[in-house]
Structures are given as C-alpha cells and as structure tokens.
C-alpha cells in the first residue's frame, strides 16, 4: 500500500497524490476512511459537549446558591412577615417594598426566572392571605409580563410554561389568548390550554366537555380534577348532563368521578341509564359511581342485571352493594359467596357481607363454621382490620 502511495508521490505533488490514491482505493475502504474522520470528530464533539454542559451546569448551580437564599430572605421578610398581613389590611392596600426586590441580582433573565419559580413554590405551599400577597408581589414586579411573553414564544413547551406560571399565580388570561391554543396541533399544549381555560374563564368553563372529541388521558383527568376541585370561584354544574349526552367515553367516565366527589345525588338517575351501555368498562365505572354515591334505589336494579354481566361488572356490583349498605340483599350476597366458582367474586361478596351493618354476627359465624377451608380463609381475611384490601 505504501509503495503505491509512494509511487504516486513521485509523480504528483503530495496533496494530489493523496487524492489520487484515495480515489483508487476500494469503495469499502473509502467509506471506512471517511467514517473514521467523522467518528473521530464526533467523539471530540461529544467530549466537548459533556465538558461544556458540566461547566455551564456548575456555574448555574453556583449562581442559584447565591440567588435563592437572597430571594428567600426577601420573601420571608417582606411577604411572610409583612406587617400589613397581621394587621388585616386588605391585600391591595398593602404597600410592598418593591425597591428591595429590584436589586441587580434579580434584574437578569435568570434572576427573574428564579424569582418567579420561587414565588410559585411558596404559593404552592401557602395559600390564603400569604398566597394573595405573593400574587400581589408578582403583579407589581411585572413578572406576569415575563410569563405572558413566554406564551408568545414559538416553542410549545415555553407556551405551556408561561400558561402554567400564570395559572399557578391565579392570573386571569383573556379568552382571546387561550382559546386559539385549545386547538393547537400539539396535544400537550391543547390539554394545558383547556386546563387553564377551565380555571380562569368566567363564563362557561365546562363548555369543553361538550366539544372535546379526543379521549381525555389519565394525566389530563388528574390535572383537570385538581383544577376543578381546588379553584374557588367556579360554579359546579350537574355533571349528569354529560353522562347522558356526551359521546366521548373518557368525558363520561371523568364526569362520573366528579359526580362522586361532589356527591351529586340528583345525577344518579342519569348514571343508572348508563347501566344499559354496551361498553362494559363504562358500565363498571357507572356501577362504581352508584356505589360510592350510596344510591339506594340502584340496589334492586343492580341485583337484577347481575347475572348477565361480565366478571368486572359483577365484582363492581358486589362492591356497590357493600357500600350502599341497606341490608336488603344479604341473602343474595350470601348466595354468591357460597356458590360462585370465582375466587374474586366470593371475596368481594364476603367483604360486602361483613361491611353491611345490618348483618347479624350469627350469620357470619355460621358461614365461618360451615364453610370450606378456602371460604373460612376469605372470611377471616375480610374481617381482619390489619388487611385493608
């Protein structure tokens, strides 16, 4: 190989020799040479990136270790221990020492963001008058403008960040800013915009339940649930409306959970109608809801449809009977406990039997004495206060 190269060198200047030599190599070797160079450079780049990242991160940590205690001191001194708070002056009349916050340290973008993050963290732990004063500070320092600016960013995660900061600080965002985002192509942005709208809209927060066509993911449900149940000035409608008319199953099942949370007894008839639904998962959710509502009128219907139900619905029916606890179906429960071939059915029947307040101890004793070894075990399991499930 070297001899070939040398022979080229004799005839041509060195750079041309190298190029001619290279062109005459087999294709495989050419590719290998190119990739060697690429791999070498890429590896150097990777090492460089790692070092840059560590360095930048270390610098950020150092800056934070200086800024955060300073912010904490300012916040505790002027907000938490604010004189106006303890004297019960209305929040908007309290004079906040803004100059204290306008120090050079907090003027940079980094500093402002740290301040916003810290204020939001405080607000998550403390509400009431402290929370209101934090909000006032956020407004007067014009930090809301910083958050609004994020919503104008082209990157979707910045938009979401801005929205979340504003909702965490109970700022109102006008409909014209949120509504377009609720139709965004990015699913996460859509979900967050919906969440923000429900929290902040004065008019009809729940109209989304009418128009949203995509399924509500579990995480969205958790966020929405928290927003709905913790926002103070929201008027809670009767969720039966969507249980009856929505074609979006995840909305229906979400509304069932809300019905249980707000104990909307007058929604129960609508939930009863769901028992006819073809989807067995939805039916199981409806039965669960009726049980937690302790809706007595449902008991007879549940027992009557029991035999046609798949396993998961049957188990839900047994659980519901235990929760509703009228004592009217003790014999039915006893029947299922003694004669069902499925372990889980017997276990849930036993649990509901034991939970029922009207049930006599003699009945339980009789079941224990006459039962099979496995049934004895099931009963003892259900009666043991140390075992929760």
């Amino acid at each position, binding site marked *: 190989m070297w001899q070939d190269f040398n022979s080229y060198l004799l005839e041509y200047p060195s750079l041309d020799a190298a190029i001619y030599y290279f062109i005459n190599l087999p294709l495989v070797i050419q590719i290998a040479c190119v990739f060697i160079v690429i791999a070498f450079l890429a590896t150097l780049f990777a090492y460089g990136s790692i070092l840059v990242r560590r360095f930048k991160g270390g610098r950020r940590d150092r800056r934070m270790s200086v800024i955060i205690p300073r912010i904490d001191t300012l916040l505790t001194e002027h907000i*938490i221990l604010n004189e106006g708070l303890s004297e019960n002056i209305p929040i908007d009349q309290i004079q906040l020492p803004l100059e204290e916050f306008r120090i050079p340290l907090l003027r940079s973008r980094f500093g402002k963001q740290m301040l916003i993050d810290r204020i939001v963290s405080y607000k998550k732990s*403390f509400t009431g008058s402290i929370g209101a004063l934090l909000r006032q500070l956020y407004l007067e320092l014009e930090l809301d403008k910083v958050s609004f600016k994020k919503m104008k960013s082209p990157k979707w995660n910045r938009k979401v960040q801005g929205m979340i900061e504003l909702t965490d600080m109970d700022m109102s965002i006008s409909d014209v800013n949120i509504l377009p985002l609720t139709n965004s192509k990015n699913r996460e942005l859509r979900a967050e915009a919906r969440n923000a709208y429900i929290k902040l809209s004065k008019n009809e927060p729940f109209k989304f339940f009418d128009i949203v066509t995509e399924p509500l993911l579990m995480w969205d449900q958790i966020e929405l649930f928290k927003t709905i149940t913790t926002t103070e000035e929201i008027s809670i409608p009767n969720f039966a409306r969507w249980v009856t008319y929505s074609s979006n199953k995840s909305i229906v099942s979400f509304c069932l959970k809300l019905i249980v949370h707000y104990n909307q007894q007058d929604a129960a008839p609508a939930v009863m109608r769901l028992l006819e639904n073809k989807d067995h998962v939805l039916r199981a959710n409806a039965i669960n809801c009726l049980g937690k509502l302790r809706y007595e009128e449902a008991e007879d219907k549940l027992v009557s449809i029991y035999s046609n139900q798949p396993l998961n619905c049957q188990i839900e029916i047994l659980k519901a009977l235990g929760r509703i606890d009228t004592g009217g179906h003790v014999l039915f429960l006893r029947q299922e406990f003694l004669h069902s071939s499925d372990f889980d059915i017997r276990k849930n029947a036993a649990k509901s039997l034991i939970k029922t307040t009207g049930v006599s101890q003699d009945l339980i004793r009789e079941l224990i004495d006459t039962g099979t070894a496995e049934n004895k075990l099931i009963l003892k399991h259900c009666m043991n206060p140390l075992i929760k499930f």
Partner: protein
Amino acid sequence: MRNILIIDDNDIVQLVLKKILAKEGYSVDIAINGKEGLARIGQQPYDLIITDLMMPYANGFEIISKIRQHPMGKDTPIIIISAITNEDSVLEGFKLGANDYLKKPITGRELIIRVKRLIDAQVSRAENI
C-alpha cells in the same frame, strides 16, 4: 416560652413556618428528617410537633408512631402538614395519634390558630393534673 419542633425536609416549609411561628412568640427548632427529629425529642421536651409525611429515611407515619412510643413524646400534640391528601392517609395519621392534619397549601392564619389551640389545650391539661 413554648417550644415547637418542625420535622420537614422541604426548605421552604422549614423557613416559612419557622418565621411565622417565631413571630408569634414560639421558639422553633428544625429537624430535616425523622431520625434527627427523634433525636431532638430525646434531648428536650416540646410543646408541639409539626411533621411532614414524605421524607427520606423514615416516613411520617413511622415517625409519629415512634414519637407516641417515646416517653417524652407520648402526649405532645402533633400536627401533620402534607401534600398527600387522600382519605386513607388522613385517617391513618389520626389513628396513629396525630392531633391535626393540614393539607398543603396551608394558610398562615389557620396554622397559627390551630397551633395555639393545641398548645393551650395541652398546657391547661398539664396544669389540671
């Protein structure tokens, strides 16, 4: 001067609670986890203990249980402050011996009233013995 012990690993909660309670005239000690909390209880009597539930090394329930078994802690009022809000956890807290359960976010005024109430009740109970 009444002594309060705060057991919490969250720096914001530690700082703010200490300031609020100190302003009301209480002397406040901070323990950053359960182990340290139990050590402090052994060193001096406290009039009130405020604890979180989720901490490293030992969770809040275990700490409450151990406080109640400790000779110097078995009558001390305990307030739980936690982000965990489900019914089971609340019930468990009370069954283990906590006197109060505050769900985050909390309001400063409510905290002060509850603290005052529990300490005053404890003091009058001690005086009546």
